């Protein structure tokens, strides 16, 4: 097997005394789509920002590392990171309106990346920007290139963001809630676009979302996070068909569906704990129907299970031994 494109090992991130991410490990192969799902406070966005070297002020990688194509990105100085960002790894965010610069045209923002990383002159960059906007299926790209972000619809702004992110054909695209702010029918179009481009370029995608539907639609593999740790990981089809961690099971059961019987939703009691008071042991234990004393003593390790699934639950540990 070839080396993974991105390898994250035992990554931990703190804000002051608060540990928001703990011992996170996963691999992402070339051209693979990994969906990272979790509710608020699960640490999924912090994972993305740590890899990009974009942790907010006060955030620090205190243990572990992220390695992209053999290069330890979590140890690089800002200068080197700047060279990587946009060129080999790029990121798109939930709200394209706040991540696009309102006083520059869309074309100028695409061209900026091209001039910075690919050394193009103004004219060549402009021409390439039009091509990129066409690639992301913005109609009348040659006119739209001179529009400002506010002149575009939400879906088109997200397309423009994707154009900027893809300008240098990165090996890794991190998409943080890329369709959360969009309507369902617009979301469907954006996911189709991302899927097409991902296949065309053989690009790996780290898809971060709270929406299990989006993950089921797009991801090859899934990483379910809860309260700063991995709860379960595995191939999307296997994980959605036979979820192994009580949290994954509860989460899937709690979603209202478009088919099947209509009854009370099996909801998860309580709330996601704040990083200020993560419980000892398994962090899901206070909300888990199967929890017993042992769950509160030590964090359960990820137990490998059939079909490439692994779940961090003591139930599986007991069953295995």
């Amino acid at each position: 097997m070839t080396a993974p494109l991105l390898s994250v090992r035992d990554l931990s991130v703190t804000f002051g005394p608060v540990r928001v991410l703990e011992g996170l490990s996963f691999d992402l192969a070339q051209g693979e789509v990994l969906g990272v799902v979790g509710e608020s406070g699960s640490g999924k966005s912090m994972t993305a920002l740590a890899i990009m070297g974009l942790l907010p002020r006060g955030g620090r990688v205190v243990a572990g590392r992220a390695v992209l194509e053999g290069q330890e990105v979590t140890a690089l100085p800002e200068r080197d990171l700047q060279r990587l960002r946009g060129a080999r790894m790029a990121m798109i965010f939930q709200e394209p309106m706040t991540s696009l610069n309102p006083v520059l045209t869309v074309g100028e923002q695409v061209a900026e990346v091209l001039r910075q990383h690919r050394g193009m002159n103004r004219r060549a960059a402009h021409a390439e920007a039009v091509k990129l906007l066409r690639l992301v299926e913005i109609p009348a790209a040659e006119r739209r290139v001179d529009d400002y972000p506010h002149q575009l619809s939400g879906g088109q702004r997200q397309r423009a963001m994707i154009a900027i992110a893809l300008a240098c054909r990165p090996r890794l695209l991190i998409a943080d809630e890329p369709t959360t702010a969009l309507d369902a029918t617009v979301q469907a179009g954006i996911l189709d676009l991302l899927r097409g481009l991902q296949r065309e370029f053989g690009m790996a995608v780290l898809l971060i979302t709270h929406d299990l539907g989006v993950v089921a639609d797009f991801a090859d593999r899934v990483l379910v996070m809860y309260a700063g740790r991995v709860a379960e990981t595995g191939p999307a089809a296997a994980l959605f068909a036979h979820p192994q961690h009580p949290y994954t099971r509860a989460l899937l059961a709690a979603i209202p569906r478009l088919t099947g019987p209509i009854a009370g939703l099996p909801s998860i009691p309580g709330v996601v704990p704040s990083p200020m008071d993560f419980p000892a042991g398994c962090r899901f234990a206070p909300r888990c129907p199967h929890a017993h004393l042992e769950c509160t003593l030590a964090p359960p390790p990820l137990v490998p299970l059939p079909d490439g699934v692994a779940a961090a639950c003591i139930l599986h540990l007991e069953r295995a031994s």
Partner: protein
Amino acid sequence: MTDVPLIEARGLHKTFPGGVHAVDGVDLRLRAGETLGLVGESGCGKSTMARLLLRLIEPDEGVLHFRGEDLRALGATRLRQMRRDMGIIFQDPFGSLNPRMTVSQLLAEPLVVHGIGNRAARAQRVAELLTLVGLLPEHAARYPHEFSGGQRQRIAIARALASRPALLVCDEPTSALDVSIQAQVLNLLGDLQHRLALGVLFVSHNLAAVRHLAPRVAVMYLGRVVEEAPREAIFSNPQHPYTQALISAVVDPGAPPRRRIVLRGEVPSPANPPSGCGFRTRCLRAQRRCAEEKPYLTEQGPRHLAACHFPGQYTMAELERAGTAPAHS
């Protein structure tokens, strides 16, 4: 039959400054104790509709009756009295609760406004309301920031129900909540609807949540209701092309993939809607008649209405001709 609907709107119109025709001739009826789901995407006018029904904003045109009384003709005093029978909750439970008031003050305020009960009776009602929404009477002394998002939404619900309204309007009540919390709040709303025999207008962009709570569903597009039917009919046999696209865009994780209808283009601006049918610019089936003639809601089946000149489910051939994306596995 003394079947006066709880709320009835006919030909409701609302245009905002700038010529934005947010609600363009909508009819809605809600019986006492009934739940109606109102779905649509951003800008379709569903939230404006929710506010019009309570006269939180003034309609420009149309008939609006609450329990047979002409709501539009009421003076300020009578309207305030009527509001006792109406409650509303919003998407953001942070923005709709005054952070400087305790839960007790927040829940008692509607009672004070409507002159219900003395101090002791109100305190008792506050405790009762907290229990009703799954919180504890001890929570009364706390402030909104001490609660999680889901708990705040429970407080908002308790406040909306304080004066024992007959109608509860819910505008995207679970959209800001995590999945595990969304289920709790949906269950609570379903439970309250039954126990209190509430009339509920459930406004949401989340089709699955609407299916869960509402036995009858109306779909809005560009300021108009394009389809309305019992939930079984709307989800298993949608007649309007827009409803079909909307349903096809939802992915149920773990369920077999559906064929997806990807709409071309964008929602037109409500300030400058297309002639004829508002959906025709994105419809796979649009013909000349659709540009010339506005379709009105007509009966497609028992209690099943759709506003389309060429209603009916898309055929496989139509979808293939349009080159829509095949189902993904």
